[in-house]
């Protein structure tokens, strides 16, 4: 591959890709309504919007995964109808999905080969893979198996796979959601380079600072409609957010004189073997969390956060009772129900299928975690009035919007379901709340309600543990932050001293010396 720049680039008056009045209907629901968007070569174009704004629908149409109901797409000025992603790829449209489609037990080269439509030999392909990854500064060893790689490396495979098709236009769906700040910086260098080569990039994100820094143009979607196309560098993060949300977002406020009390959740030397072969082993995890305090756990996904949640909740039990102490009671050997009886409450990352049974009513989902305490069960019989009362109280206190009093969990939007789940747990007045990714995939309004609820719960004396990949969220609500890497948890530090650089180093697994150095610099 002597020249990696696309042969013919239209930098003239025609956009590379245009959607004209693009509309996508699902039944009576308009997922995209008459969207006009122009993508120019040599530009990074941000696509902004909350969950459900229609970003994925638009991108799926552009990548040929769905057919628009109305309107058309033009490629270099000519009308384009895509039969599927492989035709999109052959035209020069590449896409990097947020959720990777990689086979864990295959090597990097095998995975790339599976994703290419080409007919070149495996050997040539491997050589080209190495070359492309080197040229763009995305180092990859083609012979390694995917399960051994970090999330950032897995994303590299997806990017390199897309680049090997030599695309004129590359779509990236929330690429930095799984990266450390440093990894994100490296990615931006790559993207700038791709832009300099004349390619166009559509960059989907909701991280506004990132968009301001990186993108030349931004199109904002809300409720399936295009709100505006603007120059993000000329806007403020606040003005962009207002366009996304369509109003002011409530500021989250911590109580002024919050006081910490006695330790309510103590973890001593927690070690746990994973129950699945590609899981993470928890090693020497120790921390202490006082009442009134919010501790954040940062880290790239897949570094043991899921395993830690399972160990803390009691979905998996530890051998030694003393490894987990809830309100002074050794709980390592207790089941999740017994831990709830001690006053612990849990909110897992997955709302549907883990936090709730999707096809069951909210009242039944209130019973799911409330059956241990709170009078919902008497002599083995369910007190339906009590479960409905929990639904009503959660609805009222946390502004859960739903079509009827007691709908199926799956019928609620992500934000409203998360408000219900968090509400269901907080209404039990827990002594300890362990919550994982509290605002993942949740709209800004609901996120603010949930963060405020966590702050208020801590102010009332509970100990709150928040695991999140969103460093801004952790900065906003936590008192201390620790970082999880390869099953180890770093020493918690005060949030005021936790710079993005310091956290990023820890998230990338810098050695103890680095860590000490970082501490020294920060202190």
């Amino acid at each position, binding site marked *: 591959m002597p020249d990696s720049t696309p042969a013919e680039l239209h930098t003239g008056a025609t956009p590379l890709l245009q959607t004209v009045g693009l509309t996508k209907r*699902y039944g009576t629901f308009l997922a995209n309504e008459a969207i006009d968007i122009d993508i120019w070569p040599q530009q990074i174009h941000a696509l902004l919007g909350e969950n459900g704004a229609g970003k994925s629908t638009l991108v799926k149409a552009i990548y040929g995964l769905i057919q628009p109901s109305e309107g058309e797409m033009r490629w270099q000025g000519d009308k384009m*109808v895509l039969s599927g992603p*492989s035709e999109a790829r*052959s035209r020069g449209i590449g896409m990097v999905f947020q959720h990777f489609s990689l086979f864990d037990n295959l090597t990097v080269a095998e995975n790339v080969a599976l994703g290419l439509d080409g007919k070149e030999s495996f050997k040539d392909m491997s050589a080209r893979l190495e070359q492309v990854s080197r040229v763009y500064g995305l180092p990859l060893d083609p012979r390694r198996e995917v399960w051994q790689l970090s999330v950032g490396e897995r994303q590299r495979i997806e990017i390199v796979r897309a680049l090997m*098709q030599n695309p004129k236009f590359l779509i990236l769906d929330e690429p930095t959601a799984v990266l450390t700040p440093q990894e994100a910086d490296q990615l931006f260098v790559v993207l700038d380079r791709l832009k300099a080569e004349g390619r166009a990039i559509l960059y989907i994100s909701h991280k506004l600072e990132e968009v301001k820094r990186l993108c030349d143009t931004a199109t904002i979607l809300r409720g399936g409609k295009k709100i505006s196309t603007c120059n993000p560098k000329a806007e403020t993060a606040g003005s962009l957010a207002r366009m996304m949300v369509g109003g002011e977002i409530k500021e989250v406020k911590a109580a002024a004189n919050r006081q910490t009390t006695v330790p309510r959740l103590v973890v001593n030397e927690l070690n746990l073997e994973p129950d699945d072969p590609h899981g993470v082993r928890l090693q020497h995890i120790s921390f202490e969390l006082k009442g009134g305090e919010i501790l954040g756990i940062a880290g790239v996904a897949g570094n043991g956060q899921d395993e830690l949640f399972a160990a803390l909740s009691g979905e998996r039990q530890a051998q030694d009772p003393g490894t987990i102490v809830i309100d002074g009671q050794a709980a390592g050997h207790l089941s999740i129900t017994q831990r709830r009886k001690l006053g612990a409450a849990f909110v897992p990352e997955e709302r549907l299928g883990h*936090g709730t*049974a999707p096809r069951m009513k909210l009242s039944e989902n209130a*019973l*799911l975690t409330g*059956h241990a305490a709170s009078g919902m069960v008497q002599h083995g019989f369910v007190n339906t009035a009590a479960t409905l009362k929990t639904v009503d109280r959660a609805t009222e206190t946390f502004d859960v919007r739903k079509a009827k009093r007691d709908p199926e969990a799956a019928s609620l939007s992500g934000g409203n379901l998360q408000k219900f789940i968090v509400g269901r747990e907080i209404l039990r007045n827990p002594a300890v709340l362990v919550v994982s990714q509290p605002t993942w995939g949740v709209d800004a309004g609901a996120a603010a309600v949930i963060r405020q609820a966590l702050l208020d719960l801590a102010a009332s004396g509970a100990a709150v543990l928040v695991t999140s990949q969103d460093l801004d969220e952790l900065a906003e609500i936590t008192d201390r932050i620790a970082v999880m890497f390869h099953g180890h948890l770093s020493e918690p530090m005060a949030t005021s001293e936790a710079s993005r650089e310091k956290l990023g180093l820890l998230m990338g697994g810098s050695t103890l010396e680095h860590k000490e150095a970082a501490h020294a610099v920060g202190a």
Partner: protein
Amino acid sequence: MQLVLEKRAERSNTIALISPLIAIGLTLVTMSILFAILGKNPISALGVYFIDPLTDSYSLQEIAVKATPLVMIAIGLSLCYLANAWNIGAEGQFLIGAVAGSWLAVKTQGTDAGPWVLPAMLLLGAIGGALYALIPAICKVRFGASEILTSLMLVYVADLFLDYLVRGPWRDPKGFNFPTTAEFDPVATVPVLIEGGRLHLGGIIALVAVAAGAVLLSRTIKGFEIRVVGAAPRAARFGGFNSNQLILLTFAISGALAGMAGIIEVAGPVGHLQPGISPGYGFTAIIVAFLGRLNPVGILIAGLFLALTFIGGEQAQIAMKIPLDVTKVFQGILLFFVLACDSLILYRFKLIFASPKVSRGAH
């Protein structure tokens, strides 16, 4: 033009209710074609199958008698299936229940044992069925063995075990070498409800099972656990519900009900233990459970309907010389359509007229 299945935005509750009726309709159409191929008039054949049995008291009673084991077994099976535990071996549990209860009847034969014999037999039948059902359940929980295979294979073990008993140790010495036990004593017989009729106490027990199943599922925490563990296993673990324990529990209940149905059948309509006491009740009950939407009241209706096919099949054999096996064909087709129609709850058919261009290669 092409026909595609499109996922519905949410499950359709209307379809959920009428899906069994659509399935029955499709089955009747298929059966008509089958009758026509056999050279019988489809209208009169369907009349003999489904209308004639409803016109006289004897047949109506007989339907209730046949529905009794079907409903009892299906109630138990529905608990298993809701909990994602696939008990296919109710037929075996039915037979072992019959054997366990018959043991007492054989042992007390000709003694002056009192009226405690029948309740004790029912209890033994339930225990026998439950223990037999626990074999595949324990193998599943302890060793991860597929309960579908083990429970099914144990049916044949039970069948041969019963066969051995009535040909060997329990054979009626005055029975002219027929493989059967002696007729049970009156204290070991399920009483009929109306003098001279066929309806027996088992019908009441089946109704109690329906009511108990309905209360268990809709009102109790155990019923909730059963439903959650099947519908959302990870959420069930998060709720603190132990799926292994629930597999054991639902298999035990299911085996107990099947076993009790077995001893009721032997101590009631049959009157003695012999091979062939079941025309496949344990398998037909699987159809009853699904046709009834795994809902106790639905199961009661579905049980009566399938009982009708047994009676209708017998009458069709006599009146129209239609082989009895056609009844099994009918039941099989019905299960097929019930399961197929269920996909309409979450999907719908859609005709696409303009097919998109055929995908071109990448190069």
